[in-house]
Each structure stands twice: as structure tokens, then as C-alpha cells.
């Protein structure tokens, strides 16, 4: 069993829709949770960073962490064609340096 599981998609939605992306994990020691966005032929870029449980909002993006369920989510409101990319969740333990990534979900927003 992988430490971090992420549905690879692909996921295709119309412009303006609310998108929900999710990851589950097995290691309860994970404390730091990240979402990276990766455009085609580019490196990942950090989108959201959350510590422990709770919600964090940044513009059209909201990250949620439910540690009791070992489940994290990224919501995108008013989705735009420019949001089309692969979204990777990543996490690490307290005091640890190593990031463990999910396999990524490929998202397409159709105009």
C-alpha cells in the first residue's frame, strides 16, 4: 500500500465549476500538507501549504485537512482554463525533511 494515494484522473470539468481534488494517506505522523500544481513540461510549483488539521483559503483555492480520516482536499472555485494542470499532494512528518508525493491528478478545465 502506498503511503499517499491520489486518484490520477483525468478529471475534466467546464469553466466556472467547483473542482474537488483529494488524497488519502496511511501515515498518521504526517503533519505538513501541501498541494503543488504542475503544468505540462514544467516543474511543480507550491500552491497551498497547511499544518495539521483545518482549512486554509487563498483566493479561489481552499485546502482542507482531516487528520482523523487521513484525508486532504483541494477545492478550486470558479475554475479557469488556466487551472488546467496536474495537481500533486505532498506531505511530511514533523521534523522530517522528506516529502512524500501522491501520483497527481490531471485536471482539464474546458472553456
Amino acid at each position, binding site marked *: 500500500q502506498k503511503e*499517499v494515494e*491520489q486518484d*490520477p484522473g483525468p478529471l475534466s470539468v467546464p469553466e466556472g465549476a467547483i473542482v474537488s481534488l483529494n488524497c488519502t494517506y496511511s501515515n498518521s505522523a504526517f503533519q505538513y500538507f501541501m498541494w503543488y500544481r504542475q503544468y505540462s*513540461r*514544467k*516543474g*511543480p*510549483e*507550491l500552491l497551498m*501549504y497547511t499544518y495539521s488539521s483545518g482549512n486554509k483559503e487563498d483566493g479561489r483555492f481552499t485546502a482542507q485537512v482531516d487528520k482523523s480520516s487521513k484525508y486532504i482536499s483541494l477545492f478550486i472555485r470558479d475554475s479557469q482554463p488556466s487551472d488546467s494542470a496536474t495537481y*500533486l499532494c*505532498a506531505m*511530511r512528518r514533523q*521534523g*522530517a*525533511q*522528506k*516529502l512524500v*508525493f*501522491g*501520483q*497527481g491528478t490531471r485536471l482539464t478545465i474546458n472553456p
Partner: protein
Amino acid sequence: EAGVAQSPRYKIIEKRQSVAFWCNPISGHATLYWYQQILGQGPKLLIQFQNNGVVDDSQLPKDRFSAERLKGVDSTLKIQPAKLEDSAVYLCASSLGRTDTQYFGPGTRLTVL
């Protein structure tokens, strides 16, 4: 501020050949990472440097992969000899410190025929 630079961007080689990738991290970043990203998968850490010392190389296939970071700045990752399963994107990332945000370069796409 300049980002993480990598070269070459693309490389095609025959199996059993050798190949080297170069990375120049963001100025001042002490920590440097090499990741392997196979198509359809998330990045997997190969090696992490703190300045010019190795912090974690537990997932580096040391019989064929090697990496160095001379003078604590640029880094080189080498594969010798390459296998078909080494076909992947090799990403370099850097961060100020060990637990700070990692910034990724554009990657080198390696195809082994």
C-alpha cells in the same frame, strides 16, 4: 529572483550509455534535492544535499546513480549505465533550509531506448 536552472531539458540515449544532468539552485539555498518523476507518478526523492553533504540518499540506486554537489552550489546527477526503466523526468529542487518550501526546476526529460 532567478529560479532553479537545469540542463539539458531533454536527452535521448541508448541503454547502457551514460548521462549527466546539471542543476543550479536558487542563490543562497543550502538544501538541494534530486527527484525522479516517472510518467503518471509523483516525484520520488533520489538524494538530498545540505550544502555539499548528503542528508538522504536512501532511494538512490547507488550501483548506477551518483550525485555530487561540489562547493555547495551546483549539482550533477549521473547515471551509468542507463536502463530502460530510467526513462523519466529528473527534477532538481532547492530550499533555504531543510524544512522550507522547495522550489522546483523545469526538469530534464530522459528517454532511454
